[in-house]
């Protein structure tokens, strides 16, 4: 586990994550707007709303600009014949090993945002855990899914 996995996920992931984060942040800004309206109607100080507004800018910078970039930079995976090797995490870096013989099933999943970028999430389940590889190119994702499921079928061993 000394070397990191070789493959990166799709570059478009950053854009997809940014859009998803923007949606959440815009909900926050709507609430901030509502707080301004309330402050106007009920005549209390604007300072809380102003504070919330600046917090919103900060959160926006972190969640829309910074995190997707860092997350993409850290995310790596590699599929071997015998196991799957995943690396993720920004502050806490996690490297996971999943032996093929422990894989129970593999799913691909695609939300509206990922679909726009022709991306998909592959999630790998063992009997005790589930691991996601987010945002692979559609064709890579289905190829990966098929590959893992054939590899996983090769060996049968008692649990």
């Amino acid at each position, binding site marked *: 586990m000394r070397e990191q996995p070789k493959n990166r996920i799709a570059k478009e992931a950053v854009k997809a994550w940014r859009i998803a984060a923007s949606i959440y942040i815009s909900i926050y800004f709507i609430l901030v707007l509502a707080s301004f309206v309330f402050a106007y109607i009920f005549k209390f100080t604007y300072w809380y709303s102003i504070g919330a507004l600046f917090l919103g800018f900060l959160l926006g910078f972190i969640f829309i600009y910074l995190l997707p970039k860092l997350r993409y930079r850290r995310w790596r995976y590699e599929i071997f014949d015998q196991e799957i090797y995943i690396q993720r995490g920004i502050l806490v870096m996690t490297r*996971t090993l999943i*032996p093929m013989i422990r894989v129970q099933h593999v799913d691909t999943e695609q939300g509206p945002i990922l679909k726009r970028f022709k991306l998909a999430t592959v999630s790998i389940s063992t009997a005790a855990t589930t691991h996601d590889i987010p945002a692979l190119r559609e064709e890579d994702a289905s190829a990966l899914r098929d590959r893992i499921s054939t590899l996983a079928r090769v060996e049968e061993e008692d649990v």
Partner: protein
Amino acid sequence: MFDEALVEKLQKPHRLHPASMLFSFVRVIKETILGFGLGLIITLKESLFYFFIFLIIFVIGLIVYSIFSWLRFTYRVEGDELRIEQGVFIRKKRYISKHRIHKIDLTANVIHRLFKLVHVKIDTASNSGDAEVSLSAVRMSDAVALRTILQHHKSQEEAEREAQEKTKETISWKRLFIAGSTSGSAGVIILAVLTVFSQIEELIPRDLYDTAFHYIINLSLVLIVIISVFALVVLWLFGIAGTMIKYGNFTIEKREKGLFIKRGLLETKELTIPYQRIQAVGIEQSPIRQPFGYVRVFAVVAGGSFDDQETYPVLFPLLHEREVTSFITTYLPEFQGNVQRELKRIPKVGRLFYVIKNVIFPILILIPCLIFFPQFSWIPLILVLLSGILGWLQHQDAGYDLNGRFFNFQFRRIQKVYVMTTKNRIQAFEKTQHVIQRKLCLASLNISLLGMSGIGTHYALHHLDETEVNEIGAWYSHRKTVKEPDVVTQAYHYE
């Protein structure tokens, strides 16, 4: 082979014993009270009349429902299948092939015993939490016949021979007493009493409450101390009684396919743990038992329902450290030679993390306490000290050992736990490392095993030397390694 008449009898649809109505009735009542407990108390305070109207309608409805569901519920054995039909509004049929049945457990509580009945729980390999089939009241003879028919794989002579040379062990009363007195359940009971009290406090008439309160306040300090010591002793005795009831007559028996465990004084519980479903074996030692050298042995088992109170079935409630090795060798020969191994410890730098992690929360309490109630700040101060010491111990006790295909490790939350598992039972391996750990060349690891339900059992070891974590990763990695099929298959043969 066995009573042919019984086989024939079981082929006809059977109803459960009428007592099962009582059980379902009591169960629903119990669940309702647990679920709406507070709501009921509030309604009671609002209006006694509506409460009783509601209660009567509810009880009548429930009785009718219990009768109908009893009438509709039948079971029979047909060919190789157990067939169950049930349901009042939606009729359900469930057929289970006997080859798919993993285990059949018979349990009996006080009421069961009164009518000479048992509760039959039948489990398949499915991962759902509940028992696949639960026959709540079956006559003892029928239950035994059912079990023989559904699980008979061996002839009677074989069974008899096996019965003679059974390896089994029952807990002694003395041991049980020690187990009870060191169980530390007094604390749990105090918490439970406080919770219940805070719930019913509002129901006690104000006057009575005030009188009692003033009475206690007016007592002398000495009396208060005496009363609280007395209360503690009583709670301690309750703890012993609880353990005695739960683990009384605890017997573990080694059988061909699994470990058979029988326990309980008032309510006899039987369970079979198939060998191939055991994912790990753990040895647990609480701080109270540590000075006496007593431990508890448990197993991490995949899937199925065992007991609602224990997540991990107890293999023996109390053993002395000296006896553990021979116990494991006898009952779980696969794990022999892995008990009490020399562990590789955590580097000294790691100690800081253990202590800091524990101390942070109490310090967060301490700071506002120092500001607002300086006269009480000794309470969080003691907390800080205790959790610091705990962190120190957690660092000292953590460690691991790689032994062939075995991975043994030890950690402490409050209890010290030693776990033995194997490479092929670890579902996934994870190395985690945060920024500071990377600077210090430390890393943590996570392993996932199968557990009771779909979520699995996860163990973590923190702040190991990074190269050692890499080494364990390499040991676990299936890449580039030559397989040793002989070792693996051999390990699965039990005599």
